[in-house]
């Protein structure tokens, strides 16, 4: 087996069956990476990538099945080439799995942090996947129960709430949208951004640190990218 075969096999296995398909697959990986970076760097919870994650998770399953199937064969036959192929698929799986895991965990982290805020906002609830909604509700339920059992029941009635907003301080933690983020400009921006009376013209490939609030829409429009 020479390098060509390996490459061919790699193409077929990670991205069967056609070229156009393979391009789509690698686009999916790029989108996943982007979703992951955005989720990690933005202060608020973003929309769950429903279709993308479904495609990726399905492919992960397929590849795992492939590995399982072939590792049985591996013991019986003396094939050395299949071993390399499996190593490559395994490494790729590891890479994708890492991103998937980190993506989901980052979301759970934010869901935990902003539970009550998300719970109260219709707009925010739409960003969750069904599994995440279930997780959040269950988690909140358990948490409230725990608090009640452990100490709230011993406190005066008026101190029982967990979402008190009176007295100038809110108990509900919400994302801080003015947090500074790093962005890279993907294409020249027509309308200058105004910061404290100053106008900035953003040009392609420039890198800025500024408040998330100012570029939120540009991120969604994919004119700038979080880094």
């Amino acid at each position, binding site marked *: 087996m020479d*390098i*060509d075969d*390996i*490459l061919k096999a*790699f193409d077929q296995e990670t991205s069967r069956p056609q070229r156009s398909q393979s391009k789509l697959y690698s686009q999916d990986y790029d989108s996943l990476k982007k979703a992951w970076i955005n989720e990690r760097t933005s202060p608020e919870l973003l929309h769950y990538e429903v279709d993308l994650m479904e495609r990726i998770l399905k492919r992960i399953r397929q590849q795992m099945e492939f590995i399982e199937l072939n590792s049985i064969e591996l013991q019986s036959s003396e094939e050395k080439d299949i071993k*390399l192929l499996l*190593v*490559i698929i395994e*490494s*790729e799986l590891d*890479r994708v799995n890492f991103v998937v895991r980190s993506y989901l965990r980052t979301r759970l982290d934010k869901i935990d942090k902003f539970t009550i805020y998300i719970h109260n906002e219709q707009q925010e609830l739409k960003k969750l996947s069904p599994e995440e909604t279930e997780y959040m509700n269950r988690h909140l339920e358990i948490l409230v129960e725990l608090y009640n059992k452990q100490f709230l029941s011993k406190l005066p009635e008026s101190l029982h709430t967990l979402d008190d907003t009176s007295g100038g301080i809110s108990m509900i933690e919400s994302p*801080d949208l*003015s*947090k*500074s*983020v*790093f962005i890279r400009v993907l294409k020249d921006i027509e309308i200058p951004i105004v*910061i*404290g009376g*100053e106008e*900035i013209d953003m040009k392609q*490939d*420039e*890198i*800025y*640190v*500024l*408040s998330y609030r100012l570029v939120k829409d540009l991120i969604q429009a994919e004119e700038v990218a979080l*880094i």
Partner: protein
Amino acid sequence: MKRAEVPLWLGLILKQQDRCNIVTPSWLSINFLKKAYQEEVTYTTRFFRMPWNWLEISKMILDKAPDDMTEPPHQIRALIQDLREVRLIKARRGLKELNESYMQLDNLSLMEINELRPMVVGVMDQLRKLQVGTNEDEEVSDEEAPLSYDI
């Protein structure tokens, strides 16, 4: 011998198995790095444009495939180190400009940004909080923020 373009991680696996040689990227050469260093020293206010992942890629290639390089790896390593240091100094000097509204960091690479990130974000957010805390017409001066840091 045939050339093909593959993802770096795949190239490294194949290299480990002795099934390929890695073609060193054109910017990872003595000539280019020397030129970059020169530019970096000449223009004190801006960064020379290096690839987005130059530090990561150069480290991986120097570690895993030094035998594939046409130029002596130790020289490349030294040049990378020099370039990295001169850029770091420049970036640190730029931190003096930190304010609550925005900062421009063109041509810094991902690794370099990540080194600055905690510091920059922390200071800017703190400054912004101070800004909100004071009267709107009363400008907050930089000295009021805790600017002590070491990297």
